[in-house]
């Protein structure tokens, strides 16, 4: 088991290097001279040269890229902002918790509702509950996140006054972002879960279990559900990518000072190192999440578990 985890951790390294290369290359195509953009036309030649030297912009692309990788892996240095001259890592440390709370609470919300309703919907196929939840899920899966956020804010903050509509402070501030991001994804997870459950329930082993007289409760949850679990977990992992992207927009809607709004503002101000650092960091988080999903997968799937524990035992 540990061997599996270590092997997967090692594959993270080339992926992170690859991600950094992609982000670097894309941002390299920015037209214009960074020194001129940041310092303005009125600055002197010496000031331009000082800027370029400070941020290593006088070196060629390849050397800059390798230096970045080196400093990333040895010192966790994600670069220095052109605007503030402060390390990007500082901003990351301050803002990441907010984004993480939004992301984690959303996925927990979405998974809980999506999976449970998906299973029930599959079990009670063609019932009123099934049709209602499928219809709602269809609509919610197509709704734009930022629009849903504004509508929820109108309902809960304006009309009812129950929840604050922007900023971050108390736990209450996170409820609207959680619902905004969580509802569309709960809809998608519901539809996936329902599909996989329907397949699982039609399998032979379910018929066998029923004919053996196993109580229906166990048939559904211990047999059908656990088999459907694997692709569902996989699907949730894939949706995490979209969710992280959606968190970026949600932060903008609710005025939260998370990593997402940092990246957006940096893009608007053309602060390229900040964009690079923020994007690479988020990609790292996503990669770690996928890794966690894979490990969870290995724990749940008895076939993978058997392969590794049997070997170890021998």
């Amino acid at each position, binding site marked *: 088991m540990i061997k599996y985890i270590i092997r997967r951790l090692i594959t993270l390294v080339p992926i992170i290097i*690859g991600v950094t290369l992609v982000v670097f290359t894309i941002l390299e195509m920015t037209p214009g001279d960074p020194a001129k953009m940041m310092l303005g036309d009125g600055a002197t030649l010496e000031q331009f040269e000082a800027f370029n030297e400070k941020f290593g912009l006088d070196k060629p692309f390849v050397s800059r890229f390798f230096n970045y990788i080196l400093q990333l892996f040895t010192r966790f240095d994600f670069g220095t902002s052109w605007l503030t001259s402060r390390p990007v890592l500082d901003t990351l440390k301050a803002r990441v918790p907010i984004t993480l709370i939004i992301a984690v609470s959303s996925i927990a919300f979405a998974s809980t509702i999506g999976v449970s309703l998906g299973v029930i919907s599959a079990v009670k196929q063609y019932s009123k509950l099934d049709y209602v939840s499928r219809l709602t899920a269809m609509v919610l899966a*197509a709704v*734009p996140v930022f629009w849903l956020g504004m509508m929820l804010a109108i309902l809960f903050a304006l009309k009812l006054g129950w929840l604050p509509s922007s900023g971050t402070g108390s736990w209450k501030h996170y409820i609207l972002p959680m619902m905004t991001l969580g509802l569309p994804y709960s809809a998608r997870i519901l539809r996936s879960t329902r599909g996989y459950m329907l397949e699982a329930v039609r399998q032979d082993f379910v018929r066998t279990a029923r004919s053996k007289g196993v109580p229906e409760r166990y048939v559904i949850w211990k047999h059908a559900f656990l088999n459907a679990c694997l692709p569902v977990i996989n699907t949730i992992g894939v949706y995490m990518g979209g969710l992280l*992207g959606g968190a970026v927009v949600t932060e903008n809607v609710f005025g939260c000072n998370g990593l997402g709004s940092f990246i*957006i503002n940096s893009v608007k101000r053309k602060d390229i190192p900040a*964009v690079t650092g923020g994007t690479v960091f988020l990609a790292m988080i*996503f990669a770690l999440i996928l890794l966690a999903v894979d490990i969870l997968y290995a724990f749940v799937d008895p076939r993978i578990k058997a392969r590794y524990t049997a070997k170890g035992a021998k």
Partner: protein
Amino acid sequence: MSPLQETIYRFSQNKVSLIGLAVVLLLIFIIIFGEFISPFENGVKQNIRMRLQGPSAEHWFGTDAYGRDIFTRVLHGTKYTMMIAFPATFIAEVIGIILGACAAFYSRWFDNILMRVLDVFQAIPGQLLALAVVAALGGSLFNLVIAMLIARIPASVRTARSIMLSLVGQEYIDAARSYGSRDYHLIFRHVIPNSLGAMIVSMTINLSAITLQVSSMSYIGLGVSPPTPEWGALLSEAREFIITAPHLIIFPGIAILLTALSFNLVGDGLRDALDPRLRD
């Protein structure tokens, strides 16, 4: 019945998908005939005295902060979203088919490298990839197409590759090879036509996702530039009036929702119509 006729027949049995198709056709109709329904001028004419009015007989969706007719703006906003979504999806699908076919047909070595590269691209959340492209190139219609394209290609290649790999394993390919068919003949006459069904389904999913992504980008201010009446941009303008004039938010939002929803419905219907397990 030929497979195509059978697919069409099965699709037409699904009422919900037919509604989706109707909406998609309506959108195309709006793009072509929008100018006749309500000229673009109506959405540009400012009339400050009539600003922030709710829906009325004269202004079906009300007016915005400058007194412009919102119905016209939403109507003409359709084409911006579609002008980005359709080319981006189409090109992504074509690239997906080309790379997928190469991966399925040619060396394992190429396939492995392709998979590694796709892994790297898919490790970056799509929205962030699009943000990076816009960071570099700036926000404009054309750049958004490129951004959406780059974000969608990996998934498209994966889908195409997996379909083609499963097709290549089938016996009729071996049979065709055994009587001397050349590779490119196999690709164009057998593999690609048979993978078209699943590719079209994947196209509809992409169209829906790009619609949502494009409006998100415009909403945060990194998409089209004002005063282009793209739906996300309309919602961005509406933000400061969320308390005083909620009607500004409702209509563009519903437009985005209906567009994405209808693509989803068509895609679902097509997928069910093509599913061999549901055949009698």
